[in-house]
């Protein structure tokens, strides 16, 4: 088991290193990144000074080595536009994103797990089909279309909900729903399939033969066994889905989070911010995935023994 953990963590660091390197060289491929910063009337000296200020002097390899060195010391560069440390800019955005993420994951779990169980138990009846049709809709509607339609209905037509910002609880409703729909669809389907796998197991028949109430059979013997698989998917997929989804949702609702920052810096070509923003989100996703993977292995005795 220890060997497995060590291997998994080592793989995580390799992945992170590859990403840091790839992101660095990708942003250098575009030619002179400063072209977008330097004002037309600038003198040559000013230009050189500015280049040195942002650490863009020397060959690409020299820059790369310097970049890695600074990275180790926790210096991630300065924003082209705001001229302050990117870490500071990104840090300001973390909490709003996290709030939205937590609200969405909470909402997703509380909706999709009951729905998935219901869809599995009533798979022969119309209830099961209705749930799966709903899940399909959540899958087929792109989140930006959903968010736009929500705004059209609840903000412009009915005037019930605010569109911009994250000031009150009301501000959370539309972004949370828009971000959750796709995750709910995926997780409902997955819970259903995991439950179906469990429902056909021998121990379910045993539990019924013992004379246990159906509710106990389904929830205690069924859901509990399915939950390990379900939770591992939550961990492995939700981080990635939420990262992609929040880029769109935060932009639409002007949510002051990381996704909004990423799109803004991509459009304004503020490479240092974009670079660090992408890296932080990627590293967060990888960290979460590694932890979930390890927890999953630990929680499932079959895997724990197989990988020991």
């Amino acid at each position: 088991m220890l060997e497995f953990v060590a291997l998994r963590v080592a793989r995580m660091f390799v992945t992170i290193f590859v990403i840091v390197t790839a992101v660095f060289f990708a942003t250098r491929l575009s030619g002179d990144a400063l072209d977008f910063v330097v004002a037309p009337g600038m003198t040559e000296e000013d230009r050189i000074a500015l280049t040195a200020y942002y650490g863009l002097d020397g060959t690409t390899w020299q820059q790369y080595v310097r970049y890695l060195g600074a990275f180790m010391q926790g210096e991630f560069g300065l924003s082209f536009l705001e001229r302050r440390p990117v870490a500071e800019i990104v840090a300001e955005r973390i909490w709003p994103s996290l709030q939205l993420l937590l609200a969405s994951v909470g909402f997703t779990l509380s909706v999709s797990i009951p729905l998935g169980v219901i869809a599995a138990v009533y798979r022969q009846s119309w209830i099961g089909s209705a749930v799966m049709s709903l899940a399909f809709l959540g899958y087929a509607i792109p989140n930006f279309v959903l968010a736009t339609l929500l705004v059209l209905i609840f903000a412009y037509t009915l005037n019930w909900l605010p569109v911009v910002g994250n000031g009150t609880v009301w501000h959370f409703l539309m972004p949370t729903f828009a971000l959750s729909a796709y995750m709910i669809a995926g997780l409902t389907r997955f819970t259903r399939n995991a439950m179906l796998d469990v429902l056909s197991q021998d121990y379910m028949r045993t539990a019924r033969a013992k004379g246990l109430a159906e509710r106990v059979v389904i929830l205690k013997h069924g859901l509990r066994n399915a939950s390990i698989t379900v939770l591992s998917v939550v961990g492995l997929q939700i981080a990635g889905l939420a990262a992609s989804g929040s880029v769109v949702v935060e932009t639409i609702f002007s949510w002051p989070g990381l996704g909004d920052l990423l799109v803004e810096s991509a459009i304004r070509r503020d490479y240092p911010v974009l670079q660090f923003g992408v890296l932080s989100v990627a590293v967060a996703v990888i960290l979460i995935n590694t932890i979930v993977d390890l927890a999953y292995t630990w929680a499932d005795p079959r895997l724990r023994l197989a990988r020991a």
Partner: protein
Amino acid sequence: MADIPDTAPSRLRLPRLGLRDLWAEADSIQRIAALLAISLALAALLAPWIAPYDPTAQSLLSRLRPPVGFERFKDGFWLGTDELGRDMLSRGLYGLRLTLTLAMLGACIGLAVGSVLGLLAGVVGGIADSLVMALVDVQIAVPFTLIALLVVAVFGADIEVLIIVLGVYGWEQYARIVRGEVLKLREMPFVEAARATGASQARIALVHILPNVTSPLVVQFTLAFSNIVLLESTLSFLGLGVQPPTATLGSMVGIGRDYMPSAPWIVMVPAVAILLVTFAVQIMGDWLRDRADVRLRGR
């Protein structure tokens, strides 16, 4: 747009069947989706001939006219006009055409790149295998939207860049499927026989192994296609895809958002078109996958 796969793709296998058999066993929703997919493809294909106006032709006198059936409707502009007086029907048709073209190109590039790398990893093995799988690891670890944002920001919001970004999407799925199948097939008697008769590695890979991987690839292609439509629409929506006046369905929603309170049809027309596309493609993808996965039969 990571997918939550219900099943491991490597286990998929598509039995050979004629189109007629497929149609016969389809339920009504699947038939509707198939017909819808065909009509959308035709509409996209024939856009230059069936569109009533040039999609970029502006007519400032008939700006922001609503679709047929509403007050102030102007004859000839069946789905209304946008903020520059351009015909929404024509723009929608051309947007659909571009969206589907981009998605098709992207899906084909991803299929080609992924299959070649997967073949390479499986057939050659050794360092090639480790390298490809390390890349697969990285690609899976990073949410693709982030990669797309970075690439588009660096290389500019250009149509060629967009095609490449869409092409890179999902290659790792194909690579994994192909590699897995190759590892399985490599030990089969017919491949051994080919090797014994002196066939080269390239010949074994292309003639003996690749045809046997086709079915799972077809299923993956359909699933990837709908995700690529979504990705393209999302990037264009954010303003990182094609640039005006050229429009895809996604960028039409993105730009139309500014006029939403007063002229909601500017958003509704492309939004509904996107919904129809994803609806049709998703149902067909699910259909193929369920067909291919024996374990799901009867569920």
